[in-house]
């Protein structure tokens, strides 16, 4: 029997990828990513919404940290320990400046974005939400911004209220206002950018409306902060979470930003070493911010990697990044639109889509599609993308998602589209 690649012909991912677009030279970008240039691993990586590839500078910074600066932080009196502490705290300042936060104490390092949301739910939520209070969500949310509140609701009498939206997945301030009018909202949890359909809720206006209704706002910026500048003071949000690994940094590190007075009023989330001021046989008192929320030895190397990723990203003007990614989205959207029986989920306006888009093909399961494309080196995700309520809203069990990083090229999209059509043809019942 012929191999699948033979049967499907010439469009493998190995053939093509370079190219420039707008003023950003993707060739220069790609050369900085060992994964993209390594011989023997030719593939079109179209799954950056799940996790991004890492540039050499991030890998080098982490290796140098491990090789030359290993000591625990906030502990030893010897110079090496002091140096490690200074490096770790400098990483916090990088994040502070990246988010435009007022003080480094407002930046809490966590394991990932999920843990950051859990910190808010299990510390602030548990202490401040009472019977009858509501947490407002929308179908756009990732499971990590939904389930912590569901779990809290299991043990208290709080309710979850959902902002209505239509099939275009447009999050409107009017719809948020309607929801806020019907419940006693204490918190609005809102994504900055959907990890499935790529739409962006109007953050600043939504935050203002939520505040006017007496609710705090937690922004899930895991997707947004990779594709668009985020400034917490301009937005006026109360909490904001993101993870390092989607931002070209390492796994194992996430960030919670919280307004200082809120964080100061909150109890510790995890407890143990580092987060205490004093422990006696009778009890403990907590350390000051930010250590209060960083129990145990923190992800030091990962913090260094995240700071390196922020520095790396900072070399490129946002305008260039966004213009380049805009052409990727528009080319993909137009290409997908021309494929019969394929439905792009969410907005029909490519201008409203950023970072990623998802689609379904009548009669073809995303897992089959992504497995066949995967064998040819096209890495896309098939499934519910940790957003089952959104898929339920759209009336499909699963979808195929294509997502982009700065390193993706139009050539990759142009190779992907015919490969997709062939895979659909192979799987379609004739």
């Amino acid at each position: 029997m012929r191999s699948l690649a033979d049967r499907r012909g010439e469009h493998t991912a190995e053939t093509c990828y370079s190219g420039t677009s707008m003023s950003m030279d993707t060739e220069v970008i790609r050369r900085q990513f060992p994964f993209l240039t390594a011989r023997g691993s030719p593939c079109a990586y179209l799954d950056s919404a799940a996790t991004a590839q890492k540039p050499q500078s991030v890998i080098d910074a982490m290796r140098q940290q491990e090789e030359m600066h290993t000591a625990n932080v906030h502990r030893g009196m010897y110079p090496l320990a002091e140096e490690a502490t200074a490096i770790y705290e400098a990483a916090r300042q990088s994040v502070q400046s990246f988010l435009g936060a007022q003080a480094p104490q407002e930046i809490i390092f966590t394991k990932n974005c999920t843990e950051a949301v859990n910190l808010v739910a299990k510390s602030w939520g548990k202490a401040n939400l009472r019977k009858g209070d509501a947490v407002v969500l929308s179908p756009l949310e990732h499971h990590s911004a939904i389930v912590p509140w569901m779990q809290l609701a299991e043990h208290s009498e709080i309710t979850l209220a959902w902002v209505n939206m239509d099939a275009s997945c447009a999050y409107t301030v009017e719809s948020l206002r309607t929801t806020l009018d019907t419940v006693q909202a204490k918190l609005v949890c809102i994504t900055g950018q959907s990890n499935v359909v790529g739409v962006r809720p109007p953050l600043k206006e939504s935050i203002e409306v939520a505040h006017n209704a007496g609710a705090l706002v937690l922004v899930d910026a895991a997707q947004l902060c990779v594709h668009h500048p985020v400034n917490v003071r301009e937005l006026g949000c109360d909490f904001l979470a993101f993870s390092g690994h989607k931002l070209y940094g390492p796994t194992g590190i996430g960030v919670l930003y919280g307004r200082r007075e809120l964080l100061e009023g909150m109890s510790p989330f995890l407890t143990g070493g580092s987060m205490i001021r004093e422990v006696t046989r009778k009890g403990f008192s907590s350390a000051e911010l930010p250590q209060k929320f960083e129990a145990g030895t923190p992800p030091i190397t990962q913090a260094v990697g995240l700071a390196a990723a922020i520095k790396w990203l900072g070399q490129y003007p946002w305008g260039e990044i966004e213009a380049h990614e805009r052409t990727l989205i528009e080319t993909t959207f137009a290409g997908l639109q021309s494929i019969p029986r394929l439905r792009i989920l969410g907005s029909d306006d490519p201008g409203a889509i950023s970072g990623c888009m998802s689609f379904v093909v009548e009669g073809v399961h995303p897992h089959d599609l992504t497995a066949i494309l995967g064998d040819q080196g096209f890495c896309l995700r098939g499934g519910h993308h940790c957003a089952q309520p959104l898929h339920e809203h759209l009336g499909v069990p699963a979808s195929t998602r294509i997502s982009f990083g700065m390193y993706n090229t139009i050539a990759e999209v142009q190779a992907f589209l015919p490969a997709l059509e062939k895979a659909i043809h192979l799987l379609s019942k004739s």
Partner: protein
Amino acid sequence: MDLYAEHILDHYHHPLGKGKLATPTVVHEERNESCGDDLAIELTVEGDIIMAVRWQGEGCAVSQAAMSMLSEKLEHMRTEDAAALKPNDIREMLRVPIGPRRTKCALLSLHALKNALLKLHHKPSQSWAETLGE
């Protein structure tokens, strides 16, 4: 040989045994929630022999082809022998490499069969771990 070999795609495009029985002895449905694969198996059992098998379902090519091939194999099988089928029997039946990512797709048919037979004997369903033999 790749997963999407011609015989797999043939069974996916032209499934055997797909449909409903007029008077099934037992009906049982299983789902892979994470990917949306769904199989409902219907058996007519006389004495200890499976006389007829029909099924309905939706999902990926692997899950649907496996159910198609298994339904063919089950007709006139003793219930005892059907209950003794193991994951490896399904792997051998499929004749394509099933990696860890697709194990549950391939074995959803077996899982549905096992629990249909348990239901037939008024016993509680078994877990995925039991079907996988872990």
